[in-house]
């Protein structure tokens, strides 16, 4: 049984339905599963709940699914870069659950690791703690956060072998590992698919057990949100 599919639509066939929970990797525009998001847009699946650190930019990444009104609820830590998000939220068209960035990453990791909840100090005494059980450990207060198990995970890697073993490049790894871990099914897009043995068993960042379907999404144009540089003569 091959994990490799010809394109995003083929890889998502039979997996999308209305009102499902999707976890997506990416940080800003870095390491975003853009081909798979495009295919979700084309599918028309709606009422989606998306767990992702950010919500893309207007018309980019998950921003596309916001513009097409396919997202009912976002679980995210930072959405400050998206005007359409702000508009939909402030007029009450979009439900938002803010989850601190580290809490969100751990909710995905733990959900995928069979841990339905964990205690954390993050958010104690803030709106994030409202309605959540608390516990004292060694005299300090912690709040209970729930693990996330997603119906579907969408991730972007650098290279994968045909067994689904993946490596990521630089800071594009970000939420892709915990998102993949928390999916009942994980579909991944990569820049290159290679033969087993090519990546080096010690060098794999995400073992293939977490990756069920795979496409090569190349070529990528890789947008940069803020291009900051120094001059050649600077130290």
């Amino acid at each position, binding site marked *: 049984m091959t994990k490799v599919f010809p394109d995003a639509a083929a890889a998502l066939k039979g997996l999308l339905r209305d009102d499902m929970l999707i976890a997506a990797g990416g940080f800003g525009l870095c390491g975003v599963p853009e081909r798979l998001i495009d295919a979700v847009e084309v599918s028309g699946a709606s009422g989606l709940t998306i767990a992702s*650190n950010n919500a893309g930019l207007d018309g980019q990444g998950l921003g596309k699914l916001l513009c097409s009104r396919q997202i009912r609820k976002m679980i995210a830590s930072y959405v400050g*870069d998206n005007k359409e998000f702000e508009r939909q939220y402030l007029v009450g068209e979009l439900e938002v659950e803010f989850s601190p960035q580290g809490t969100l990453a751990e909710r995905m*990791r733990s959900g995928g690791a069979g841990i339905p909840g964990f205690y954390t100090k993050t958010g104690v005494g803030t*709106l994030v703690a409202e309605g959540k059980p608390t516990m004292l450990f060694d005299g300090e207060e912690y709040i209970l956060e729930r693990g996330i198990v997603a119906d579907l995970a969408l991730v972007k890697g650098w290279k994968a072998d045909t067994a689904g073993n993946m490596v990521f490049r630089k800071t594009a790894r970000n939420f*892709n590992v915990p998102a993949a871990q928390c999916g009942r099914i994980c579909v991944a897009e990569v820049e290159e698919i290679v033969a087993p043995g090519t990546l080096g068993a010690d060098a794999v960042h995400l073992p293939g057990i977490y990756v069920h379907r795979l496409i090569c999404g190349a070529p990528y144009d890789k947008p940069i949100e803020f291009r*900051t540089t120094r001059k050649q003569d600077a130290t």
Partner: protein
Amino acid sequence: MAWTRDQMAARAARELREGDFVNLGIGIPTLVANHVPEGMTVTLQSENGMLGIGPFPFEGEEDADLINAGKQTISELPQSTYFDSAQSFAMIRGGKIDLTVLGAMEISQGGDIANWMIPGKMIKGMGGAMDLVAGVKRIVVVMEHCARDGSPKFLPACTLPLTGRNVVNIIITDLAVFDRPDHQSPFRLIEAAPGVTTDDVAARTTASFVY
């Protein structure tokens, strides 16, 4: 008179210690990297999954896969490492980071910090700030002393939703520096910008502090 943004960043850099692992927030805190004392080894952590942030890349060498938490292009160092977001916040929450420098909209005299939302108006989210103030050993805040309308930002109690309760160690504004030795003590005014008097600071502060 008042310190510039760069002078505030330079003052924050004086809180760095040899060997520190440091996370810098977005805005003025990012400038702190330009003021690490010569010869001091400080490792900068970026919560999107990197230890050992290098300087901005040379023109033409920008890499879309290599950004900081402010989504700016950066470069790597020989000792840099990359990891996923869960690992990144395990370091932060687990107390492995020595110091963080953050911006703020309000700080209370009890060390509360608010910097993530204005109800009904601005909705950005907390990003990693709540995790940082909960897990990092020493929390340095760098902010303008007053808001644009002149209202004080160092207050008896925060009016905005909190990012963390009783977590701030040092406050550096364009007018003054406040420090406290522990989370039970009041903040003490320990420095003022050139030509700024204690009375000037008190006139622009509603929080109670000692000096």
